[in-house]
C-alpha cells in the first residue's frame, strides 16, 4: 500500500521531468536557430551588399541620400563592361588554368604521400606525417619572401607557371593531412585482403583506397580548389604584369585607377569570381557527405 502510494506520488514528478526535457529541447532548438540566423546574416551581408552594388548605376552609388541596401534602378552595365573586358577574361582564364593544375598536382602528391605515410610503415613515417602538418602552420605571409628568392632564381617571377610551384606549398600539407586521416580510417584488413588477393601497392591504392576514400579525396580537392582560387598574397608578391594575373589580384589592381574605384565593376567582378567555388561546392557536396565506407566491415 505504502509502496504504491509512493509510486503515485512519484508519477507527477516523472511527467514533470518529461515536460522539462521537452522544454530543454525546444530551448536548444531555438538558440541554435537564433545563432545560425545571426551567423548567416553576418556571412551573407557582404555578398548581398556586393550584389546590390553591382546592380546599381554609378549615379545611384554616388548618391548618398537613399538607403544603401535598396536599389532604385537595376542595371547590368557593370557586368556587361567586365565581361566585355579582355583583361578580365584573361584573369579568369589564368585563375582557371592555375587552379586546375594546382588541384591536380596537389592531389597527386598528397594522395601518394598520405598512402605511404599512413600505410607503409617505415622508419620515421610518424615524424614525417607530423612534419607535413607542421609546415602548414607556417603562414604564407612569412613564406613569400624566401619563396620570392626561389621563384626568382628559377626565372619564374611574373608568370602563372611560378604560381604552380608556390601554391602547392599551401595546399599539399593540409590535403596530405586530410588524406592521412581518411586513409587511417580505412580498416587495415581491407589492404591485407587486397594483398592476399594479389594486389601490388599501386593496385591497392588505385583499386581500393582511392574509390573507398573518395569522400576524403573530394574534401581535399575542395580545399585545394578554394585555396588556389582565392590565393592573394603569393600572386600579389610574384605577379606584376596584368596578362599573368589571376582574378583575385587582377580585379583589385586593374579596376582601381589611382584613387578612382570602379565600384560597380569591382563588385561584379568579385561576384563572378566567387561563382566557380559555389558551383564546385554545390556539385561535390553530395559526394562529400556520402559515407562510402559503410559495409566494408562489421557495422
Amino acid at each position, binding site marked *: 500500500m505504502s509502496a504504491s502510494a509512493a509510486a503515485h506520488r512519484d508519477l507527477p514528478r516523472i511527467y514533470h521531468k518529461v515536460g522539462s526535457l521537452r522544454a530543454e529541447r525546444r530551448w536548444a532548438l531555438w538558440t541554435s536557430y537564433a545563432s545560425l540566423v545571426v551567423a548567416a546574416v553576418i556571412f551573407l551581408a557582404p555578398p548581398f551588399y556586393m550584389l546590390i552594388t553591382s546592380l546599381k548605376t554609378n549615379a545611384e552609388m554616388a548618391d548618398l541620400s537613399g538607403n544603401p541596401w535598396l536599389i532604385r534602378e537595376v542595371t547590368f552595365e557593370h557586368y556587361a563592361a567586365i565581361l566585355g573586358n579582355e583583361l578580365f577574361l584573361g584573369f579568369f582564364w589564368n585563375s582557371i588554368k592555375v587552379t586546375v593544375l594546382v588541384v591536380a598536382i596537389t592531389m597527386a602528391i598528397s594522395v601518394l604521400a598520405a598512402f605511404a605515410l599512413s600505410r607503409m610503415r617505415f622508419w620515421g613515417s610518424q615524424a614525417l606525417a607530423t612534419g607535413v602538418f607542421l609546415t602548414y602552420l607556417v603562414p604564407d605571409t612569412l613564406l613569400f619572401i624566401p619563396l620570392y628568392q626561389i621563384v626568382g632564381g628559377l626565372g619564374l617571377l611574373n608568370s602563372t607557371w611560378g604560381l604552380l610551384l608556390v601554391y602547392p606549398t599551401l595546399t599539399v600539407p593540409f590535403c596530405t593531412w586530410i588524406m592521412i586521416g581518411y586513409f587511417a580510417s580505412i*580498416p587495415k*584488413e*581491407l589492404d*591485407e*585482403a*587486397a*594483398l*592476399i*588477393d*594479389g*594486389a*601490388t601497392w599501386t*593496385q591497392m591504392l588505385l*583499386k*581500393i583506397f582511392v*574509390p*573507398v576514400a*573518395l569522400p576524403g579525396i573530394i574534401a581535399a580537392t575542395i580545399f585545394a580548389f578554394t585555396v588556389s582560387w582565392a590565393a592573394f598574397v603569393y600572386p600579389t608578391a610574384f605577379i606584376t604584369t596584368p596578362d599573368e594575373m589571376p582574378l583575385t589580384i587582377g580585379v583589385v589592381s586593374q579596376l582601381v585607377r589611382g584613387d578612382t574605384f570602379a565600384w560597380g565593376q569591382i563588385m561584379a567582378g568579385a561576384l563572378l569570381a566567387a561563382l566557380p567555388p559555389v558551383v564546385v561546392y554545390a556539385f561535390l557536396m553530395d559526394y562529400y557527405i556520402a559515407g*562510402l*565506407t*559503410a*559495409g*566494408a*566491415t*562489421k557495422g
Partner: protein
Amino acid sequence: MAQVSLRSLVKEYDGGVQAVKGIDLEIADHEFVVLVGPSGCGKTTTLRMIAGLEEITRGEIAIGGTVVNDIPPRDRDIAMVFQNYALYPHMTVFDNMAFGLLLRKFPREEIRRRVDEAARILDIASLLDRKPKALSGGQRQRVAMGRAIVRNPKVFLFDEPLSNLDAKLRVQMRTEIKKVHQTVKTTTVYVTHDQVEAMTLADRVVVMNHGVIEQVGPPQELYHRPATRFVAGFIGSPAMNFIPARLEAASGALNLHLPGGIVLPVPEERTGRYEAAKGREVLFGIRPEHLTERREGRATYAEIEITPEVIEPMGMETLVHFHLDGARDLCARLDPTVPAAPGAPIRLTADLANMHLLDPQSGRVL
C-alpha cells in the same frame, strides 16, 4: 599437395615481447586445423605469419614443401577470411569475389564460372549484384568465404570468422564452414578463441597459451586426455572442476583425500599410473558431466555430499554450482528431473573412471 609446416616459429615484437615462442606444427594436406586459446596466446599472430602479413622473427614456414618466409602474401597461394569480413565496400559481391582472379589475369569466362560455382556452394547466387552494405552479417561472411573459395588456393586461413555474428547465426555458419571444407577439401587453418568452434570444426585442435603450443590432437583426445591443466580447463564448458587433494596409500589401493574429509577410492586400473605420486599433494580434476545425480552399478562410482549454491536449469540438464573447503566455483551436471535447491544438501556421484590427477606445481596431467 599443400601441407603446412611451422618449424621453431618465433615472433618477437619491438621491445623484445615474444608473441610466439618457437612452435612446431605439421598440418597435413586437406586437414582442418584449429588454433584455439585465450586472447594474447599467439594464435592470430601465427596465422598472420602463415599469411605473410606478419614478418617471421625466427624459424620457418613451409607451404606445400616450399619455405615461404620471404615470399609476399600474393605469391603464397593462400586465401584468408577476416573477422570483420574486409569486403571491398565499393564493389559488388561479384566484383569482391572476382577481384583476386582479375588481378591474376584469369579469363572472363573462367572468373564467371568460378564465382557462380562458389555462389552456388554458399547460396549467395541472388546477391551477386549487391554491395556489401546491403548485406546482413551472415551474408557478408559468406561473401568473404566465397572470395576465398574462388581462388582455389592451397590453404584457407580463417581469423575468428564467426566472432562478429550472433549466437544463432554462428552455429549455422559453423556448419556451413564444415560443409564447405567437406566439399572443397582445402587445407585449412582456423583461429578462434571459442573452444566449441574448435571442437566441432577441427580434425585436429592446437591449444595455445602464452605463445606456446600446450597440446595438439583430435578434439575427443583433447577432451578426454588433456595433457595440462590449461588444456583440461580450457576445453569443455562448463570447465573441468579442480579440487586440491592428497593421494594416500590404503592397504594396497590408493585413496584421494579431498578437503572436508571426503575420501575417494582411486579405481584399480589407475593405481599403477599414480603410484609415483603416492603421499603427494595433487589436483583432482573432474568434468561436470562426471559429477552427476546419485547413481549405482559401477565400481568407479563414488559419492560426494554437497550443498548447492546456485542452480541453473538449462532445459536438457541442470547445472549445480557449489564449493568445497579449499575449492571454489565447482559445477555438477544433473538430470533436469532431479530436485535440487540452493542450500539443500544433495548427494552426487563422481565417476572416477573419468577423473584426472594433476601435478599442482607443473600443471601436467599425471
